[in-house]
């Protein structure tokens, strides 16, 4: 893995240097994090964790004839103390690396490399090609294909359970500002045979809709079908009603036929789930922007599965003053859940959640305090709560370069206590183009 990281970082350096030399608009983002933590794990000795993690991102626009761009993002980590994460003391990964050609018409683009595709019911990462464009008469088309990006191998298996190739696409139709409908599908090649888990092919087709019959109302959502189980997999819909610019009322409905939806979740043997089990949730929320500085919101959601039901409700308040340089928020939610959702061997899964944060940004420095607490109705592993407090202080060395440090302390049922310190060096070099991207 160390070798891979070295090759990766070398390649990134060469590519980025070349890109910077050729491109008109280049932005670079790097975040270097040095973590210092002591973990006191129940039933084990204390561990001293010292991971150094480097994130690196590059976006080079306006290459060649001005329509070509290069996008790269990845990370690497090395442990200087006890193992921080896995059995590897060094690790890294290329999150995305692709070139894109996007002419200034018809939302057309062609991408080649490693990227994520989010189209209709599709949300995939692959090494391959993706082409998309709007077409005459309100139509649009996106197609993609390539090699599956594999993830961690399942325990006791030589594979992650995924097939090696993946392809699919979405065809959509838009009618003025009222309607968009789309059909999409994703198909992966045959899943490999596994020893202790069921092999499950990943294939899904679906339809999505956005409907705005009135300026104040829109409905958006999708349904999908699993050709492997020959049953529906998911219905997920959202209704928005905006009676005034400051007020948003929403209703949502989600239903998953668990075997069909979780079919390719090999880690949990999704293909062997009871084909009749469903999980359903529906809810309502309302938000009101009282003025430029203050927004309040309330929400309620009900969950239903074969072994019980649960209700979650609560509210949030957010404030932001002085051109967003002072921000804050406070929220409370209560989850009342049936016994079937509790952690074995306990009988209650209900808890209260409280959270508040405040932030201050200035030209030279920035600070943040974040508090989060979960208070259980029945003790879990002998603890009645799980809470964490995080304080962060940073200094802008230059407008693009900042050094910051976080200190957090928490007590919870899993670890007796957690003390974490992070030193963070962030560099964001954006080109002085219009708008800029965050």
């Amino acid at each position, binding site marked *: 893995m160390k070798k891979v990281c070295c090759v990766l970082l070398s390649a990134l350096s060469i590519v980025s240097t070349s890109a910077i030399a050729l491109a008109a608009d280049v932005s670079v983002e790097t975040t270097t994090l040095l973590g210092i933590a002591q973990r006191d794990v129940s039933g084990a000795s204390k561990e001293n964790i010292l991971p150094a993690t480097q994130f690196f991102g590059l976006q080079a626009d306006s290459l060649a004839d001005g329509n070509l761009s290069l996008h790269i993002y990845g990370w690497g*980590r090395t442990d200087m103390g006890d193992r921080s994460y896995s059995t590897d003391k060094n690790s890294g990964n290329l999150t995305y690396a692709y070139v894109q050609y996007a002419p200034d018409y018809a939302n057309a683009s062609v991408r080649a490399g490693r990227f994520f595709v989010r189209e209709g019911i599709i949300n995939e990462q692959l090494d391959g090609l993706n*082409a998309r464009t709007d077409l005459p008469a309100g139509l649009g088309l996106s197609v993609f294909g390539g090699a599956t990006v594999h993830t961690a191998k399942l325990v006791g298996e030589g594979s992650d359970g995924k097939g090696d190739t993946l392809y699919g696409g979405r065809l959509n139709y838009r009618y003025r*500002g009222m309607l968009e409908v789309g059909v999409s599908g994703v198909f992966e090649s045959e899943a490999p045979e596994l020893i202790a888990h069921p092999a499950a092919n990943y294939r899904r087709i679906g339809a999505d809709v956005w409907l705005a019959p009135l300026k104040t109302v829109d409905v958006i959502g999708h349904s999908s079908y699993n050709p492997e189980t020959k049953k529906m997999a998911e219905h997920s819909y959202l209704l928005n009603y905006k009676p005034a610019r400051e007020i948003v009322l929403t209703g949502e409905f989600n239903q998953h036929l668990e075997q069909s939806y*979780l079919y390719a979740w090999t880690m949990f043997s999704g293909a062997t789930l009871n084909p009749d089990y469903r999980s359903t949730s529906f809810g309502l929320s309302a938000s009101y922007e009282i003025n430029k500085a203050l927004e309040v919101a309330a929400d309620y959601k009900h969950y239903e599965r074969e072994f019980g039901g649960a209700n979650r409700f609560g509210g949030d308040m957010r404030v*932001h003053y002085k051109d967003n340089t002072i921000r804050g928020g406070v929220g409370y939610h209560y*989850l009342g859940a049936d016994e079937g959702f509790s952690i074995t061997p306990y009988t209650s899964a209900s808890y209260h959640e409280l959270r508040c944060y405040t932030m201050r940004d200035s030209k030279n420095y920035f600070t943040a305090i974040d508090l989060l607490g*979960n208070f259980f109705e029945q003790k879990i592993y002998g603890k009645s709560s799980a809470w964490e407090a995080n304080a962060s202080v*940073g200094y802008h060395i230059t407008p693009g370069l900042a050094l910051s440090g976080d200190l957090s302390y*928490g007590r919870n049922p899993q670890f007796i206590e957690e003390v974490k310190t992070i030193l*963070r060096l962030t560099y964001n070099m954006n080109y002085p183009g219009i708008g800029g991207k965050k």
Partner: protein
Amino acid sequence: MSNRHIGISFFMVAALFALVASCAELKSIRGLPESHPESLAVGQQVSCAECHDDQQSGTLKAFDSFSHTSAFVKNHRFYAASDDQLCSICHKSSFCTDCHTNKVEMKPSTKYGHRPDREMQHRGNYITMHKIEGKIDPASCYRCHGRSNNERCVACHK
């Protein structure tokens, strides 16, 4: 219909796409601009309706549909599924992959401990909380950890 037939159908559509794409008519269809013409503040809950009251040519949807209200932020997956090109006017791909990613070890709430306003997922001691939340709504886990980004999951779920 067999999987082979479905596959052939998709490639035929792809071939059709290539044919149509060569048509000069595409050049008359307006697309979204490369980036937003005004700089937006970091951490700002953008209200598109502050400046726009019409619909945009690139998506044929009202600008206000994309105002970053609390409801929008919580339900942004619906909008990104059909209009991620609109997202990319203001956000780099890395903004999305801060959370929606694969093989990233660090929790986004740790990487962005100095930005609590982004309300990143799994803040605090989620190792305990996921034992409850995962039972209540397993589909919400699957969306991000079902087919990717599951190194933490396989460490215990064997």
